[in-house]
């Protein structure tokens, strides 16, 4: 997993190495400072003769501080570069890989989870990366240097360190180890609590409608108190960090003072007064580094989850690939299904489509009717090979769709998805998705055909009107018509409308269909609809139920032969439902 992610460092490798180098230098310089200070202080004791020496040492110290500052500064700079670059590359790699995802891959992750992975998770990993190259090296280095310096300077006096490091280090790690699972458990509960608040906010009308305020309050307070208890337990483990550290500092302090004065006054060692305070400084430094290490440990385990989620996206291989010797031309718009079965998950039990056999001639208009869950959308999505069939084959113009170049096939099949999306940008920009090089005339023509020209022209800025993210500033029906125009600009051999006129009134709907018949007679048109009126003039109507085509025929044939069709028809006509 780490290897996988590390591949994304790429051109920022030099920055990483520079950071490591300068951090090393900084740590080395930083740890000599107390040593020099001790010399300086010791020299004071000798009075007059050493004023020169004091100043000399002072200058050395300032020089060291400036060096340490520069090294630290440069390291900070290169580290920022490396970590920002690393996250940029990670996002880049993920985004590029996602572009290759097939529908199956997209379904597997869901779009909201992909968003979190590309934002929050990348951010977590970036922060950890910065920690690793900056602090994870610095902390143990400083720790080692400090211990070495303390031994050089204090000799036996440094014995306290030998006791302090394992006690404190072990203690901190132990606390982190115990606290983390406790926190993870609480956070899960906490997420659940917040979910239930969200549920409550969303369903406020239901809560109030049933006068369930008091009930909700009680439910919430029980859950909240439960979390409070768990949280307190976890926090109490972490609360021991402070006292443990204090204990170690104080222990070291007493040891240095008592043992130190014994060594000095008893004449057992050559150490001097000035060394005592530097020993305390080293002790403090060791302590800080241990704390850093325990913090890094916590951060790394926390972000390991994020790293895993990113690696999953990077590792995902598209389930649909271009064939080796693809065919680059789609001759006509005829379609045929031969014994097609399909299920969404390889190992899933339920088939979404079973036993589909069908021939559609080029230029035909085909209507599809069926309830929710009857797999109408699944059926049409097999045509541009958005999914691969599980059994059987789908051919377009007599060629198996798996043999076409993917772009060629998809450019020949214009599809308006049920859950359609316009992107932030002008109307023109959105329409050019269909054909980058479309002229203004072509765009207007497509819009006229989709019955969109009229309302677009009524906007003050016409085709340059800016569409907000998600297309929130056009109405549902307008959005659908723009999406149809966008698909028309592809000049497809096959045009598929997946419930794409549901928010368009019946009159306009009829005009759109009439336009299709007159202006693009050679294009095969497949129309999924809820309204019988949208399909009744089709050359062929398919009635789908539970993943199978149960009846086929023209409107008048089906009225006689198909019970379901008749039922829907009667309900809509008698119920007067022309607005569904």
């Amino acid at each position: 997993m780490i290897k996988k992610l590390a591949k994304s460092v790429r051109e920022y490798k030099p920055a990483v190495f520079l950071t490591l180098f300068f951090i090393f230098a900084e740590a080395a310089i930083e740890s000599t400072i107390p040593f020099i200070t001790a010399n300086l202080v010791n020299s004071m004791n000798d009075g007059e003769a050493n004023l020169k020496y004091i100043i000399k040492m002072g200058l050395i110290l300032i020089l060291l501080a400036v060096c340490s500052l520069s090294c630290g500064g440069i390291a900070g700079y290169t580290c920022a570069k490396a970590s920002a670059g690393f996250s940029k590359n990670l996002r880049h790699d993920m985004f590029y890989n996602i572009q290759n995802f097939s529908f199956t891959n997209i379904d597997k992750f869901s779009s909201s989870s992909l968003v979190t992975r590309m934002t929050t998770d990348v951010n977590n990993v970036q922060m950890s990366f910065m920690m690793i190259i900056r602090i994870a090296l610095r902390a143990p280095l400083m720790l080692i240097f400090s211990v070495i310096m303390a031994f050089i300077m204090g000799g036996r006096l440094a014995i306290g360190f030998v006791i302090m490091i394992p006690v404190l280090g072990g203690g901190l790690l132990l606390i982190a180890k115990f606290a983390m699972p406790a926190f993870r458990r609480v956070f899960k509960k906490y997420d659940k609590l917040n979910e239930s608040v969200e549920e409550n906010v969303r369903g406020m009308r239901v809560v109030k409608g049933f006068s369930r305020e008091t009930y909700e309050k009680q439910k919430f307070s029980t859950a909240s108190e439960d979390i409070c208890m768990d949280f307190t337990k976890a926090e109490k483990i972490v609360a021991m960090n402070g006292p443990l550290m204090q204990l170690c500092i104080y222990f070291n302090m007493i040891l240095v003072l008592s043992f130190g004065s014994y060594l000095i006054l008893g004449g057992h060692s050559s150490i001097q007064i000035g060394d005592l305070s530097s020993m305390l400084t080293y002790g403090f430094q060791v302590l800080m580094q241990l704390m850093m290490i325990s913090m890094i440990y916590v951060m790394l385990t926390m972000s390991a989850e994020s790293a895993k989620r990113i690696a999953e996206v990077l590792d995902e291989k598209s389930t649909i690939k271009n064939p080796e010797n693809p065919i680059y031309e789609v001759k006509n718009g005829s379609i045929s299904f031969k014994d097609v079965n399909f299920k969404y998950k390889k190992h899933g039990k339920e088939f979404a489509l079973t036993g589909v056999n069908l021939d559609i001639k080029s230029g035909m208009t085909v209507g599809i009717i069926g309830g929710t869950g009857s797999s109408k959308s699944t059926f049409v999505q097999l045509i541009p090979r958005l999914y691969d069939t599980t059994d059987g084959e789908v051919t377009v113009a007599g060629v198996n769709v798996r043999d076409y170049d993917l772009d060629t096939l998809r450019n020949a099949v214009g599809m308006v998805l049920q859950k359609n999306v316009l992107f932030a940008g002008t109307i023109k920009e959105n329409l050019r998705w269909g054909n980058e090089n479309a002229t203004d005339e072509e765009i207007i023509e497509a819009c006229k055909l989709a019955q969109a020209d009229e309302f677009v022209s009524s906007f003050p800025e016409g085709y340059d009107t800016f569409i907000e993210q998600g297309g929130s500033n056009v109405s549902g029906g307008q959005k659908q018509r723009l999406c149809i125009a966008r698909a028309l600009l592809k000049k497809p051999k096959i045009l598929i409308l997946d419930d794409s006129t549901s928010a368009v009134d019946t009159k306009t709907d009829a005009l759109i269909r009439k336009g299709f018949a007159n202006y693009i007679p050679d294009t095969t048109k497949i129309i999924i609809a809820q309204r019988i009126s949208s399909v009744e003039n089709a050359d062929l109507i398919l009635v789908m139920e539970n993943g199978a085509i149960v009846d086929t025929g023209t409107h008048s044939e089906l009225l006689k032969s198909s019970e379901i069709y008749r039922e829907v028809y009667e309900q809509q006509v008698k119920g007067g439902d022309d607005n569904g």
Partner: protein
Amino acid sequence: MANQRLPKGMSTGKKINVKSLIRVVKMLYSFYPKLVVVTGICIVFSSLVSALPAVFLQKVTAIIDEYCKNFKIHDNALWNIAKGKIIPLLIVLASMYIISIALMTVYSLLLAKITQGFLSKMRCKMFDTMQDLPVRYFDRNKHGDIMSHYTNDIDTLRQLISQALPHMLQSGIIVFSVLFIMLWFSFWMTIVVLCGVVAMLFVSKKIGGGSAKYFIRQQKSVGKTEGFIQEMMNGQKVVKVFCHEEQSKVDFDKVNEEVYNDCFKAHAYANCLGPIIMNIGNILYVFCAVIGGVLLFLKVPNIGIRSIVAGVGILDISLIIPFLNMTKQFTGNLNQLSQQINSVAMALAGAERIFELMDQKPEDDEGYVTLVNVRYDGETLIESDEYTGKWAWKHPHGDGTVSYTPLAGDVVMKDVDFSYIEGKQVLKGVSVYAKPGQKVAFVGATGAGKTTITNLINRFYDIEDGKIRYDGININKIKKSDLRTSLGIVLQDTNLFTGNVMDNIRYGKLSATDEECIAAAKLVGADGFIRRLPEGYETMLNNNGANLSQGQRQLISIARAAVANPPVMILDEATSSIDTRTEAIVQRGMDKLMEGRTVFVIAHRLSTVKNSDVIMVLDKGEIIERGSHEDLIAQKGTYYQLYTGAFELE
């Protein structure tokens, strides 16, 4: 990426809002009066103790220094003489340390308890307040914004109570006591330290300010990238269908490069801040040492507060050493203090947002007419404590008498005017008469005011002018909870709650037995599919029943309304997001439910409303046509045009 906060120690230029701080502390005190005081005392004492080592270090080094000067030979004999002075000092020091550690342990544990208890209580308080807020609040505020009070803002409170406030107190006390000790020892050296500190603060403020600027810029570009990613991920299937992959890669690289640049700059600044502050501390240390050395060399007379007691002496090494340590302690804690002040200010901003929610005015309920169980004693109604299945409105009058009106479901609206926002009238002179058992339908375009009418009947909103009467009683006089209990609602967006199917049905009537719930499900035709679910009525529903189809969810929400068994039902677009075939099934459930009740139906689909007793066609807040289906068809007005599909409702 949105949570890339400013790193610690970076000035945001925010000032502490004293009023909110006092309010937080007051609340904290009101929850845990004793514990808060104990914690505070523990923090103060343990901080005072941590300032003491300097004093003891000075004393011990003074003794060593003295012995070193007086005795040139260092051996065990000298140590044996000296230890009589040193050991007792160290014992005092050690025992103070032990007390300090004990105090720290106590307050750390107490803080954990207080913080979490406080948060839990705040959450509950917030939730309680929220439950009583009028629907208007939820309509006006984005759900995400409301949620962020429970996530982000509560989190800032946690920071405030468990870290920022105690640390601020701690650092403040240490800074002041170290300052005092420094002054106690030597004025000269104190002045040197203070000069250095001023320089340090100046530099860190400069750099911090620059960094904050870039962080704000980074925040913006991060937001932009996030928006782009969100849009692309949501539209990924469209990208595929249009073979637009290459183009979107190019677009993404542009945005990605931008965020890289800002992120890099912001972090470069922030990363430099640490080494700079630390090394200024080092340089300050050196200055202190050198100047101390010079003063020592010049044998300058030392003046400090101590001089008042002990007389003016000469600056010696036993003073310089502790001073050097104090320099570090002083600058370190001063840095801490300024950081903590900053984070307190940020946390208080979160607290203020929570207070804003808590200070919202709750839905007022001046109603005094209540719904009670009754039984008949001949012709007269007698209130009963037990469940009788019969209900009546209990209406206490000014003169002390009480009258009972049987619950029937007669709803009358007369000349009702209403607007959500002043000046933008939504309903104009609307009158509706619904006799018990009648089905009244509202038809009209989005924004015509259909839902508004039902919002007024159950008093989610209050009318401006006109009257609404329920069983002849002005609804303003009826207690809201009782009014709503007598009205059942089924909405277009089915909101199911986490729990099993049975719990969800029982939501309509908490005291309902399993049998009652099943009976309700049977009534509306939901029993069949529920039994076929993996665990029947015990099947858990998560995430608003995502594991069910739209129609199934709707059936459960209809069963939920059925178990409540109210005399009046409001069905607001209850079937509009279901396809026509599924609707036919749900419709049967609805028809069963509607029998014998007064029903208000709002529907997009005319098939749903065709068999109503009265259909009202609304346009821009006014009823433009009313009558039965046949009447309206005969009128050949708007309804006729809708029916024949000449226009579209949007």
